[in-house]
């Protein structure tokens, strides 16, 4: 159990996919302009990562070595297509705004990376911990980035995802005064680079302070 917790916390902290490993930056940059997007993307990535890690880990002894990568890609692509179909049918607005980045999870290097580096060499329980850790680490990073971008770029936060899914109330607030003159650059592409770059620097700095 101690090792489960260790594998899990590793993904959030020391090997955070976005801030430390700098993996999966393409979708992180592209979709993080709104919190809705970040939540949807995170859910999709966690689901695909968890399912593919479990299957790959369970099948690791029967997968022929030379067909390793094609097999992983087929397994990952299956789950991604599944998520795409479900999103298209049940959360169409999210499907529209994630656009090409949803099917592109197939080639997301976080997922293939975990399959190759971890799940194909470790038992199922450890792979679940690894997938959840890396997945939650990715989700937290994406949520942090999109929170800052949406807040600065539009002057407020609005989440309508849960409203569409469960008819729960929508969540929104605006910063008075600031919302009239938001820093629009933060919802555009340059803002993504600025926010991710500054956050990376911050986490590096924190990491170095800890080591000293």
């Amino acid at each position: 159990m101690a090792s489960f917790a260790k594998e899990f916390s590793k993904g959030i902290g020391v090997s955070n996919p976005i801030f430390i490993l700098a993996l999966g930056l393409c979708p992180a940059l592209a979709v993080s302009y709104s919190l809705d997007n970040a939540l949807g993307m995170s859910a999709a990535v966690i689901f695909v990562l968890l399912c593919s890690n479990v299957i790959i880990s369970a099948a690791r002894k029967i997968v022929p070595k030379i067909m390793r990568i094609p097999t992983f890609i087929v397994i990952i692509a299956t789950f991604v297509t599944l998520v795409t179909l479900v999103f298209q049918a049940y959360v169409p607005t999210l499907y529209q705004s994630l656009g090409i980045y949803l099917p592109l999870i197939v080639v997301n290097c976080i997922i293939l990376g975990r399959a190759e580096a971890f799940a194909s060499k470790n038992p199922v329980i450890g792979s679940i911990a690894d997938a959840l850790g890396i997945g939650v680490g990715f989700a937290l990073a994406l949520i942090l980035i999109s929170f800052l971008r949406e807040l600065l770029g539009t002057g407020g936060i609005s989440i309508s995802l849960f409203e569409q899914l469960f008819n729960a109330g929508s969540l929104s607030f605006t910063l008075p005064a600031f919302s009239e003159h938001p820093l629009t650059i933060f919802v555009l592409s340059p803002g993504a680079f600025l926010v991710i770059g500054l956050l990376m620097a911050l986490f590096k700095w924190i990491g170095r302070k800890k080591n000293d």
Partner: protein
Amino acid sequence: MPSLLRKIYPILFVTLIVFISVTLLIFTESFTSAELQARLQQQVEEELESMFPELDDSVDNEDSEVYTLLAGGETIGYAFLAVGTGYSGDIAILVGLEDSETVKGIIILSQQETPGIGDRITGDGFTGQFTGLNIDAVNFKQDGGQIDGLAMATISSEAVIDAVRDTAMEKVKLIEGVE
């Protein structure tokens, strides 16, 4: 024999994996496609109401796949779906006709054209040009029609124009045949 088996094992394995994968996806698709169909139907109805504000009833003619649009019992127009082959995938267009020769408006229901280039076909600047045109005039200006294509997006523009014109001509024959 075992050595032969060892040679073909990778092939068999991947074939099996792909087979399982496809089965799973077909199964999922059968669930989600019904949901998708229902939503598309709803979207068509909403778009038609914005195109024909006075609309209060419509008749779905199953044979010709044309909706006859009614207001207070009078026919006020027709609507049907046209599908064009765009630059990257099908473009689904909802076409509304005022009578058997005039276009009331078109709405792009779905498309996968290049973002920022081909996807400008969804803009009012392009779709608005169809409003009020005679079906024969649905063509590029240089080809004798009245529509300005989109610069850098000729294939996408042409796909929409051709789909609207050809489907409209075909459906008009069916409409007139009924009356």
